[in-house]
């Protein structure tokens, strides 16, 4: 009989191999490709005092661009929340011809290069384009090269986020819930508001937040249709490029810091929303 020996508790608590290898590799690669470059932006702003930093990021042209970028993004995400819900509902609940194609094409904004989307939208909504001719010629609404054009591009880019976060939740929704509500005397509308919508809310908010975060940083699909008129239709990412082209690195970096801080807040928010959604529906995202 041998003496009991104490076994040092292993960190990974698993018999599967590769913990040290994958941990080391993941951390090194993550640091080199992602963390170091992100840190570079923050370190570069350290050149500025806080007062200087504030002065740089509150110039009128920038403030106008924040209003446009955040305002149009919020509006676009809201539009997407409404129509994304309708589209997800139609895709899950109804059958109609061409459904498979519609379902596949919902992801087009993910797959289509932003520059292609940009020139296509700019052409469509310009005075001579199919849609521009109608809006400008018939209704008298100018879309291309105005803030409205920015909105159109951001709606395009954000749609899949809402549809794709809602779809699986809608598919997993048990019919029994709605049957129970109906058997208890609820109308279809009451059932939707009190039974279905609460289940969808976390996912809907997640989709909204994802679309919003993406829209604020979007560049390629917007610049062609925006017209980039100073103080009117210049988005914030464009101003970073303008500063860079003027070799104003500190200016570009200061704007980037503002946007990065916003992105990280959104990232944390989205993570929170996703775990809320997962808890509520019992599924893992």
């Amino acid at each position, binding site marked *: 009989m041998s003496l009991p020996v104490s076994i040092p508790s292993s960190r990974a608590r*698993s*018999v*599967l191999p*590769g*913990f040290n290898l994958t*941990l080391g*590799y*993941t951390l090194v*690669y*993550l640091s080199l*490709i992602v963390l170091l*470059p*992100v840190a*570079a932006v923050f370190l570069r702003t350290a050149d500025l005092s806080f007062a200087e930093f504030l002065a740089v990021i509150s110039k009128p042209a920038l403030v106008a661009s924040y209003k446009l970028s955040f305002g149009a993004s919020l509006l676009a995400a809201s539009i997407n929340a409404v*129509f994304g819900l*309708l*589209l997800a*509902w139609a895709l*899950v609940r*109804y059958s109609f011809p061409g459904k498979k194609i*519609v*379902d*596949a*094409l919902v*992801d*087009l904004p993910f*797959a*289509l*290069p*932003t*520059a*292609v989307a*940009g*020139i*296509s939208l700019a*052409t*469509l909504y310009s005075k001579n384009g*199919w*849609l521009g001719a109608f809006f400008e010629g018939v209704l008298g609404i100018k879309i291309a090269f105005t803030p409205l054009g920015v909105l159109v591009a951001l709606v*395009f880019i954000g*749609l899949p986020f809402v549809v794709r976060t809602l779809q699986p939740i809608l598919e997993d929704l048990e019919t029994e819930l*709605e*049957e129970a509500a*109906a058997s208890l005397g609820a109308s*279809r509308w009451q*059932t939707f508001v009190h039974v279905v919508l609460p289940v969808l809310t976390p996912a809907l908010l997640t989709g909204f937040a994802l679309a919003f*975060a993406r829209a604020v*940083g*979007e*560049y*390629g699909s917007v610049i062609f249709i925006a017209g980039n008129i100073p103080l009117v239709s210049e988005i914030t990412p464009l101003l*970073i*490029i303008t500063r860079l082209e003027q070799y104003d*690195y500190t200016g570009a970096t200061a704007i*980037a810091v503002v946007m990065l801080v916003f*992105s990280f807040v959104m*990232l*944390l928010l989205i993570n929170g929303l996703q775990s809320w959604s997962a808890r509520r529906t019992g599924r*893992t*995202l």
Partner: protein
Amino acid sequence: MSTTANTAHLRHQTRFERNAATREPRWIKWSILGLSLGFFLLFIFMPLLAVFFEALRKGWSPYLHAIIAPDALSALRLTLTIALVAVPLNLVFGVAAAWLIAKFDFRGKQLLTTLIDIPFSVSPVIVGLMYVLIFGANGWLGAWLQAHNLHVIFALPGMLLATTFVTFPFIARELIPLMQAQGREEEEAAVVLGANGWQVFWHVTLPNILWGVIYGVILANARAMGEFGAVSVVSGKLRGLTTTLPLHVEILYNEYNFAAAFAVASLLALLALVTLAIKSWVEHHSAAQQINAPLSMEKTS
């Protein structure tokens, strides 16, 4: 088993539309369909159609001319080169990170998962800026690089780095939840039966995640070939040298050479369509595979 949800999915529409409790009045159904599909046509389908329409507006001959122009071909070559480097790099990373996160418990796992998502939330323009700050003429390493006659910004390495950054999470994001859902039992069973680490991965893990790998790779590839903002900042747009296909489209468009711009753009749109087709096919295939199990269980138990 959680996979029962997938069988339900197939029978969904008929199930919902026949069931009095889950059916809306006809006029509401038609309103929802009308609004959602109208929105889809306006925002998704028309822009796609316009690309091909504009590309062929002047006929096939100018179209082909624009595509086989030397600048377009060198842009194509550069685009393929970048994707061929960035995607495999992120594939290796994605598999390693997913293995780490799905198969082991360790402190800081949640944080790591969040950090992997960072590139999704950073504006492409800022990605370009980051590398300019490090490798540009006024950047941290600028002077050193210049002294050694090395070019990163306005050259291929910078474009590779920017593309690798923006496609960084794609494959990992696909594989992490997939491998977590599959658990560790099969791998543990293989180890108990005497398989070594490489054998476990090759014979047990890889066949199970193959569809996820394909899925992640095609999405990462689409983004790598189509990236515009990040690459545009670090490319310098030296025509025929550092222009990728999306940058080439921009240049042609800004020169008011619309037909040529849309001709090249239509190649990228085709790439997007192929990507979506493969994606749907993979989704269909992996769903069909999962459905197998619960069906046969219903039969026998």
